[in-house]
């Protein structure tokens, strides 16, 4: 049993609340990705689990054990640092052996464990080298190796891929998922890269300014962002947000935005009318915005091709810009041309303009 459980965990550094009343449970053997912008407190969460920092309030359990006040070495966790934190004066072998030495693992056993880990990570030929003689990707794997030799209950990984180039990052991402499948250990993985979060996590937890915003399966978070922040943070380019006023149109409710009206699904309309809101924030992802006989008029500003797709920037009647992702083989769009935008009602997210939380 190696779940990790946070109960109301808070950590302050002076005036900064790095982690604010975190309530979260990472299930046993889960690969949970903690994602959020720089400075939102992700690293601090990992350090709290590792015991490198102590929370100002709240409880942390690893498995069934309360670990507040327990020394890092007694927590049965391993951490992969963003900087890798390899010991520069030791060979790869010594680096990987290091956590075993102090735990009095006999020599043959150590050699076996290091050998296995090196095998797993393809480091066998590099065991005699020093970190300075390795490439970035190799160093990253040594850092992983040092973490896995110990067979810890929980892996903590702090942006382990951020120092790799794009190609290596994609490849290592796949390897990490595979590694997790094989080791079946709980992983708490930190990144600020939402693509990484979407592709790797069995669940993702989105943080902003110390506070947890939403936890769920990647698809869930993508389809039903809990608030404006999540809607904009997850997905690229970010979700278009337009303020609109709620109007009754016959039987149903619609939202009037500059250049037209957006229809609502009956259940969303129900929530809006229940709250008797006069204004809402309308969110539509760029990939869900179609340039097609829709209800909202706009003007083409720029269209760029990325090779596999096109992205268009459109101005609404009041000058607000929205972005749409389109297929490359669609009709050509001239700058300044008038178009009609549309989105399917189930792809329209509504948010409370006062709190930013999701409606419906």
């Amino acid at each position, binding site marked *: 049993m190696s779940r990790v459980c946070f*109960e*109301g965990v808070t950590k302050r550094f002076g005036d900064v609340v790095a982690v604010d009343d975190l309530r979260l449970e990472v299930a046993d053997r889960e690969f949970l990705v903690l994602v959020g912008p720089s400075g939102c407190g992700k690293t601090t969460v990992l350090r709290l689990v590792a015991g490198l920092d*102590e*929370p*100002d*309030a*709240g*409880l942390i359990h690893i498995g*069934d054990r*309360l670990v*507040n*006040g327990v020394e890092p070495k007694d927590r049965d966790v391993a951490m992969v640092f963003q900087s890798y934190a390899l010991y520069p004066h030791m060979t790869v072998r010594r680096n990987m052996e290091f956590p075993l030495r102090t735990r009095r693992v006999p020599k043959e056993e150590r050699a076996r464990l290091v050998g296995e880990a090196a095998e797993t990570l393809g480091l066998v030929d590099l065991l005699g080298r020093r970190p300075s003689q390795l490439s970035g990707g190799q160093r990253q794997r040594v850092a992983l190796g040092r973490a896995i030799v110990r067979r810890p209950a929980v892996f903590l990984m702090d942006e382990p891929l951020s120092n790799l180039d794009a190609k290596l990052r994609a490849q290592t991402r796949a390897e990490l998922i595979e590694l997790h499948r094989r080791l079946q250990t709980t992983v708490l993985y930190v990144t600020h890269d939402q693509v990484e979060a979407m592709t790797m996590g069995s669940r993702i937890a989105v943080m902003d300014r110390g506070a947890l915003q939403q936890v769920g399966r990647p698809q869930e978070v993508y389809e039903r962002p809990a608030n404006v922040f999540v809607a904009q943070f997850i997905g690229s380019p970010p979700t278009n947000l337009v303020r609109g006023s709620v109007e009754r149109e016959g039987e149903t409710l619609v939202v009037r935005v500059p250049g037209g009206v957006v229809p609502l699904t009956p259940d969303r309309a129900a929530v809006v009318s229940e709250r008797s809101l006069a204004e809402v924030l309308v969110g539509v992802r760029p990939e869900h915005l179609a340039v097609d006989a829709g209800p909202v008029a706009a003007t083409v500003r720029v269209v760029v091709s990325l090779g596999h797709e096109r992205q268009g920037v459109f101005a609404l009647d009041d000058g607000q810009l929205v972005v749409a992702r389109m297929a490359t083989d669609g009709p050509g769009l001239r700058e300044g041309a008038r178009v009609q935008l549309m989105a399917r009602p189930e792809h329209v997210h509504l948010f409370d303009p006062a709190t930013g939380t999701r409606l419906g």
Partner: protein
Amino acid sequence: MMDATGGTPTAREAAYRRHGLFSRARVREWLYGLALLSPSFALFAVFTFYPLVKGAYLGLYRSDPFGLHRVFIGFDQYLHVLRSGGFQSSLGVTFWFAVYTVPAGLVLGLALALLAHQRLRGMIIYRAVFSSTLASSVAVASVMWLTLLNPSVGILNYGLRESGVGAIQWLNDPRWALLAVSLTTTWLNLSFTFIVLLAGLQTIPEQMYESAKIDGAGAWSRFRNVTLPMLSPTIFFSLVVLTIRAFESFGQIDILTQGGPLKRTNVIVYSIYTEAFKNFNEGVAAAQAIFLFLIILVLTLVQFRFLERRVFYGS
């Protein structure tokens, strides 16, 4: 699950707070820090701070010639020492000793450093030779110079005689003794100044010289406008260190002149030494030591002002 440890989360949390579990790590780190500092700290306390205070205290007393009884004199003793001809002459001697050794040491050290800064074949040997006086202690240097300065068979007087100048009683002539001691000291300090200044020269980027050259600066102009300004912090450092050393000098005096002739080489530390351990005038010696401390304190503060950024905030 929750009940395994008992109570609601907040209640348990409060319990941990009460028992200081959250801050226990911090307390432990504090104790650890103090433990690591304690060996150094204990030694400093016993052999630096305590004796400093004790020395100031001793300076308030006068002991009889047999060192048996102590009579309380008070701060008057400090005033008395300050006004005494003996101490003033010691101060003067030390001052002149610094005047003889510091500028000469700097100029010679800089000359050597400039000579050795060039890229020439075999330079490593010259550098080794220029660094070699570092290998001799005060005692070694003094004994070596003792023979060189020997009035009858010393090489120096041999040279002077042969060139018609005539012999000089280097260590016995009141007019020459301090100069002779200074000569020895300058030689002894040479390698230190050389090494420090050469290292300073080596940190001046080559491009600065190149751009000066392109601007048409000659060798002298490059020295004036690039080398000296860039080297000035290092020169200043050497200056202060050499001055402090001058005020702390003792060994060369003890071996070459024992403060003589006519106390013309009776530098402060030698004076402290004779008053305390030869004349058993401990109170007077202690008061002199406090004055020496004040002088060196000022010099060190000057040095710290310059080092501040480097010592405190890393490079």
